[in-house]
């Protein structure tokens, strides 16, 4: 899934003005601004989870097993209010969701950042070295991109086993190809420009080109890809955890919470699965709305 784009032709110093312009266009859509606010709020909340959550749901000492499966709004044995109810271990759902969000966002961001870094290196190298290496790398990228992410991720965790780090590795393996392809396209365009400059007698050092010209110009398509992939990563982690092959049950994960609540859902304790899912959906919808608006701003031709 690639994002067709037009690259602006200005170099580094003009980037600030461009950022302002991008923001003002972005802000024209109220929905997108609200979505962005939601995303920022979620990030803040997730970061602050240990501080603001009523309890740490993964510290076994804090749990009271007697309080298990209480519906939302009931008070526990010690009088505390469980706003979203508790699960079968007596965990406060609200705290669990906050911690779960924290993990989801962390995993999503980490995977996106690492995949971005790897993809950038591969893309730049591929574009600058060219030739057989480029053809080979891009063929690799194409093959990888033609396989569904979930399959690749499943196989990797099957081989590597459970764990947060393994999940991140799996997510990175799935995502790097998108970035590699996007960066390579930008890099090729920059190289073409470079030839023109060189012909005019201006030979710039490669590092200068990469940092002051290539990266600012590639920023445009990359940020759209990154936003979309961020959402994908979150869904993928939740899915893997739900299937039981993602993070281990000692870690908070919205997917695990939902999986855990499945059997109780059928007997009426629906809040165990519903609320974590709602939190997940809110986060993903918000990110997707932001990504959608970004894509419209970056390429007016595709404006929906």
């Amino acid at each position: 899934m690639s994002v067709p784009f037009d690259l602006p032709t200005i170099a580094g110093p003009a980037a600030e003005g461009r950022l302002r312009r991008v923001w003002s266009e972005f802000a024209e859509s109220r929905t997108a601004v609200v979505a962005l606010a939601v995303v920022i709020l979620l990030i803040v909340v997730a970061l602050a989870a240990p501080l603001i959550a009523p309890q740490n749901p993964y510290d076994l000492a804090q749990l009271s097993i007697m309080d298990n499966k209480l519906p939302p709004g009931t008070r526990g044995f010690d009088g505390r209010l469980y706003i979203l109810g508790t699960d079968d271990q007596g965990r406060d759902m609200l705290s669990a969701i906050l911690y779960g969000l924290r993990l989801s966002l962390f995993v999503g961001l980490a995977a996106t950042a690492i995949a971005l870094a790897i993809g950038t290196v591969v893309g730049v190298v591929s574009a600058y070295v060219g030739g057989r290496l480029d053809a080979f790398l891009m063929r690799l990228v194409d093959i990888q991109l033609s396989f569904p992410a979930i399959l690749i991720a499943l196989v990797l965790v099957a081989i590597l086993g459970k764990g947060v780090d393994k999940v991140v590795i799996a997510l990175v393996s799935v995502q790097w190809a998108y970035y590699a392809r996007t960066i390579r396209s930008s890099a090729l365009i920059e190289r073409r420009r470079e030839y023109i400059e060189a012909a005019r007698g201006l030979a710039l050092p490669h590092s200068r080109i990469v940092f002051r010209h290539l990266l600012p110009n590639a920023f445009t398509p990359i940020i759209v890809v990154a936003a979309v992939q961020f959402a994908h990563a979150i869904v993928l982690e939740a899915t893997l955890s739900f299937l039981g092959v993602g993070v281990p049950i000692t870690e908070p994960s919205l997917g695990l919470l939902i999986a855990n609540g499945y059997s109780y859902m059928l007997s009426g304790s629906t809040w165990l699965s519903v609320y974590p899912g709602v939190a997940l959906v809110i986060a993903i919808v918000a990110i997707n709305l932001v990504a959608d608006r970004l894509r419209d701003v970056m390429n007016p031709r595709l404006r929906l």
Partner: protein
Amino acid sequence: MLAFLFRRFGQGLLVVAVMATLVFLGVYALGNPIDILISPEADQREREEAIIRLGLDQPLWVQFGLFVKSALAGNLGTSFVHGVPAIDLIVSRMPATLELALVALVFAVVVGITAGLIAGLKPRSLVGRGIMAGSILGFSVPNFWLGLMLILLFAVELKIMPAGGRGETRAFLGIQWSLLTVDGLHHLILPALTLGIYKASFIARVAYAGTREVLLQDYVRFARAKGLSQRRIVGVHVLKSIMIPVVTVIGLEFGSMIAFAVVTETVFAWPGMGKLLIDSIYRLDRPVIVAYLMVVVVMFVVINFAVDVLYTVLDPRVRVTREV
């Protein structure tokens, strides 16, 4: 055109070969093939026998040859858990998955194209905007949670749908299909809906963008200038023009549908290949995992090839014909 298709076919073979190599390397060179291919339950004597039988004491390239030879013969290992050849296991579960993927795909295509077309014709209307908003929701909701919520609503609360499992089947061409029974269809509805909504959203967006672009084209203006009815213009001119980008999406999506079925099958306890994969991962039934991989790769290559063929049928410009 034939030359183009030949080339694509060759590329497909190449992909299968590459994947086979990767799988081989993953199993024999990186993983411990003894753990992967020999059941952990086996005792020392059985293990030694298996090692010799599977050629695990031979040099790597000989093993590769053995691997390829047995793969071509259809032998991709024996399931630890079930004791039958892995490939048989997978093939026996294939109809269930194919059914599910097919129904979901048909649903996604029909709903997606219709929704995208309507939204594209009236983008600023309530219906149009609603459809576009719905599509964002459609591909943002995680597959598994959507399935759970649908079960909650229709099976638990309203009690009008079954909560899982496959319905009755009837044989056709020697295979058991649940599509052919009413009960089977009843059981198919929720899983297919779950699997299909994600793709439907995507297709709707592609159809929308395509429709907006086509409506700007001169040939649509010319069609109006000829006095054609709106129905004809939309139903023939617009529809055929947006089919090309839509088919591209569909082709790629059927493959990923089979992959995503893994999640849906787990949620609905649907006895397909996907559930088999998950179970195998749980129980470390590695030969089945390997066999699943190879089967899926081949399926993907076949599907991509079929899409290429379909493409040339739909877009006459792709066919290399002599200028008249």
